[in-house]
């Protein structure tokens, strides 16, 4: 499935970019993220417990970042596996300055398979959209609330 969206964050592109590639920020904004551990340069293992209402599942996702252009863009690759199934995806993020804010453009392709895809295919796309919204809402709150991070 494809997930496209634009999100406005009240911070300049520099802070937004730094925030999004900072594992300490990611750990707090990725929905259901319990732990993000660094496994190499721009490489992480993300321990996630995600789902909706009663239907939560645990996943471990390998995340790595590529095509980094400071303050402009980067690409995030995710490969997550758990008992309920697997989630694989690539997300391209672009940052454009809009006054004192940043417009983030997200273009992601996500594949879901296994049990959740088999029984939950009705709602997978809606859940993915909701989690993406949650991610950017969390991010917006953190960036608005925190002092400028150091490089």
């Amino acid at each position, binding site marked *: 499935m494809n997930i496209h969206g634009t999100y406005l964050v009240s911070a300049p592109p520099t802070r937004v970019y730094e925030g999004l590639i900072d594992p300490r920020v990611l750990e707090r904004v990725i929905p259901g993220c319990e732990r993000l551990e660094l496994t190499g340069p721009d490489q992480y293992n993300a321990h996630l417990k995600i789902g909706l209402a009663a*239907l939560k599942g645990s996943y471990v996702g390998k995340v790595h970042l590529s095509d980094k252009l400071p303050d402009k863009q980067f690409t995030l690759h995710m490969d997550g596996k758990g008992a309920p199934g697997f989630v694989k995806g690539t997300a391209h993020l672009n940052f454009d300055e809009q006054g004192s804010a940043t417009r983030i453009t997200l273009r992601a392709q996500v594949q879901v398979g296994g049990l959740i895809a088999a029984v939950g295919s009705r*709602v997978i796309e809606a859940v993915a959209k909701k989690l993406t919204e949650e991610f950017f809402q969390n991010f917006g709150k953190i960036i608005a609330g925190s002092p400028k991070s150091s490089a």
Partner: protein
Amino acid sequence: MIPAAFKYLRPRTVDEALSLLAQHGEDAKLLSGGQSLIPAMKLRLARPATIIDIGRIADLNYVREQPDHLALGAMTTHYAIESSALLAQRCPLLTELAPQIGDVQIRNRGTIGGSLAHADPAADWPAAILALDATLEIVGPNGSRLVPASEFFIDLFQTALQPNEILREIRVPATSQAVAYVKTAQRASGFAIAGVAVALDGAEAPRVGITGVAAKPFRAAAVESGLSGGLTKPRLIAAAHHAADGIDPLNDIHASAEFRAHLARVNTQRALENALARMTD
């Protein structure tokens, strides 16, 4: 598969259930008819540590006439609603919808309260609850509160119910026979790809509730305002065109977003026509 191990508790009163919920917090799930929860548990997509079965609480399964509404206990089964002579006469939208849920086995166990609390985006009851502008009675540690249907469905699988609350009663108005529920079901599961409930009540403005189309059920406000000038056939058809206005239709292997929007429009027209045909003035 079989469910992961869980603790099973069976309170005898609503107060006992509330205190168990407070005790066990996020690790507990209420069990009513189990027609959504148990399959999820068997697949291990849901793994509540504690199940609080409210099925033996007395006096949650009833259909009663009150001076200004009809009251349904949250544990009233779909089948009890389907076979209620009182509802067939006083709130026929419910008796038209009920037999379209799942199958007989599901209807014998599944409850209206459980269905509403679970808030599956493709469940049937939400469309009727919205079209009837029903009121929901919710009990919690601080007493009970009434929530209008229009404020109950918040997002995908998310309702106004807090984790420490229990839905106790659903209050619906008495209506005329000018109602209808038209659904296109996914063949295997019976879930609504597009389900439209309509209540045309003489003096009141017409109401249209739609399920299965968006991440949460909604009132088709654009259709309703298109009908405000009167219920003629051309107006019905024109108004139905707006059934999917302003929402983001779900997209999955059963139906694309475009197809869902199309079905919303078609089923809205059919439901409006059916309801109008049943109007006796």
